[in-house]
């Protein structure tokens, strides 16, 4: 397999982007990513687009072809990829495979979502389609509800405290405050988190990400040519993609996602690296507890020790592993289909030394994207070249 590199990255700001439609958002991020790389647009041979709820919330299907057309990439194969909130990570995986296997030399990958034009109840219902409708969601379960059930179990089993969980939100909002791309630009206190309104007990408003619009994109090419197209290319060292149980009641242990564990094993194996090598990680904090579980499933901390690690600052910018320096989904925002690509955008900036919240001495970075309650996950490990 050929080594793959990222030679351009772009992202819209995340937030309520009034007057900007789903196609325009995707085009904007792609244009920025293409402008960063010196690869001429006509070199792009394939386009993969991650999107989850565009058909339902933006009434738009055939999205990949529409975006490719608008970019003047008419003629190339354009594919929309859907895997709930991991759609962006899966799109990237397909782009990487296309180049690694020698099928293509230059691939554009993007993720996009337009969510803020819809009422909250409609967004909640749309996101709930990531669950098993017949087997679980028809009880009236929501995604915050599913992660609330998981949160309660993690607290009971490992003694994880409500304060430790709340500190994830404090950390991520603090980082989002200094990220110009983030939706929330204001720090919050632990008191504010713990007194915000209940969404699904024990999860409160500040344990959840906002409803967001946004898009992010990257340009890929074989690593051996990468320096010709960007002065600071980023190498894709490892890529993992795995599935897991779709419902809570089918999981032997609801405090761990087997898809994350499997995807990370594949990525670490390909990269010949271990969790201790990772200096910075963008993980899927779709809820505060999801970040704690991700740091355990990815092997940064032993099972059950993710809560204390947050309390000790081990996941802060100067900790053992800097987790979500962008502010994560909770503060940067979570336009669901865009998230997997936006995580990689942040890590590309970190590896180039250009990030808003730059972590020191970054050599190895990891992106973790999760769909549903762990029905699918991708893990991508990136390094400097």
């Amino acid at each position: 397999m050929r080594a793959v590199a990222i030679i351009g990255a772009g992202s819209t700001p995340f937030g309520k982007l009034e007057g900007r439609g789903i196609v325009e958002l995707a085009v904007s991020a792609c244009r920025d990513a293409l402008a960063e790389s010196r690869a001429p647009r006509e070199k792009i041979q394939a386009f993969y687009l991650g999107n989850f709820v565009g058909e339902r919330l933006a009434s738009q299907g055939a999205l990949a072809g529409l975006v490719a057309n608008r970019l003047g990439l008419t003629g190339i194969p354009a594919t929309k990829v859907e895997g709930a909130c991991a759609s962006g990570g899966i799109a990237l995986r397909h782009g990487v495979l296309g180049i690694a296997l020698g099928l293509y030399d230059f691939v554009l990958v993007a993720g996009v979502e337009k969510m803020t034009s819809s009422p909250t109840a409609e967004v909640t219902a749309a996101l709930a389609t990531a669950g098993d409708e017949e087997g679980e969601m028809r009880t009236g379960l929501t995604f915050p509800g599913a992660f609330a059930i998981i949160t309660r179990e993690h607290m009971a089993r490992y003694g994880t405290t409500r304060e430790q969980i709340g500190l994830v939100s404090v950390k991520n909002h603090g980082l989002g405050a200094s990220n110009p791309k983030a939706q929330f630009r204001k720090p919050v206190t632990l008191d504010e988190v713990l007194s915000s309104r209940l969404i699904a007990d024990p999860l409160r408003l500040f344990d959840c990400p906002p409803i967001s619009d946004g898009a992010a994109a990257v340009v890929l090419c074989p690593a051996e040519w990468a320096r010709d197209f960007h002065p600071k290319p980023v190498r894709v060292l490892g890529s993992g993609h795995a599935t897991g149980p779709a419902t809570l009641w089918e999981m032997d242990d609801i405090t761990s996602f087997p898809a994350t564990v499997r995807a990370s094993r594949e990525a670490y194996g390909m990269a010949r690296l271990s969790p201790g090598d990772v200096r910075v990680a963008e993980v899927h904090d779709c809820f505060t507890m999801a970040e704690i579980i991700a740091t355990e499933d990815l092997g940064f901390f032993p099972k059950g020790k993710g809560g204390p690690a947050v309390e000790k600052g081990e996941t802060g910018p100067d900790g053992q592993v800097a987790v979500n320096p962008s502010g994560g989904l909770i503060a940067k925002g979570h336009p669901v289909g865009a998230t997997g690509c936006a995580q990689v955008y942040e890590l590309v900036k970190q590896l180039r030394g250009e990030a808003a919240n730059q972590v020191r001495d970054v050599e190895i970075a990891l992106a973790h994207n999760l769909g549903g309650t762990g029905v699918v996950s991708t893990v991508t490990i990136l390094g400097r070249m």
Partner: protein
Amino acid sequence: MSKVITLQAFFEEARAGRLTGIRCGRCGELAIPPKEFCPACQERAWEPLPLDGRGTIASFTVIRVPPRGRAAEAPYAVAVVRLDEGVSLLGRIVDIPLDALKVGLPVRFRPLVRDNQTVVGFGPTV
């Protein structure tokens, strides 16, 4: 046998108040339908097994921000229930005050019919 492994049959039985599991005829693994192959031994030899419907709450939440169409029902509770036979199932909590809910609370299956659709529910044991 084939009847109980479809989701439709599972919910038809549930609507009549009968909770049905499936047991692997080869290795004895117990599961909730529908499932094609036994996750333990990969065989497709399911046999229906009536479940008693009693269990305890393993974990739960109270939904305060419901999806579209359920505003009138909120707040309501949803729980993962560990059945006495050893399998787990997710269901809507009915007729138990929200502040009485706790992990370990004994509950009993009961069907809940909403918009002509059967939903797994769990209520008090007596």
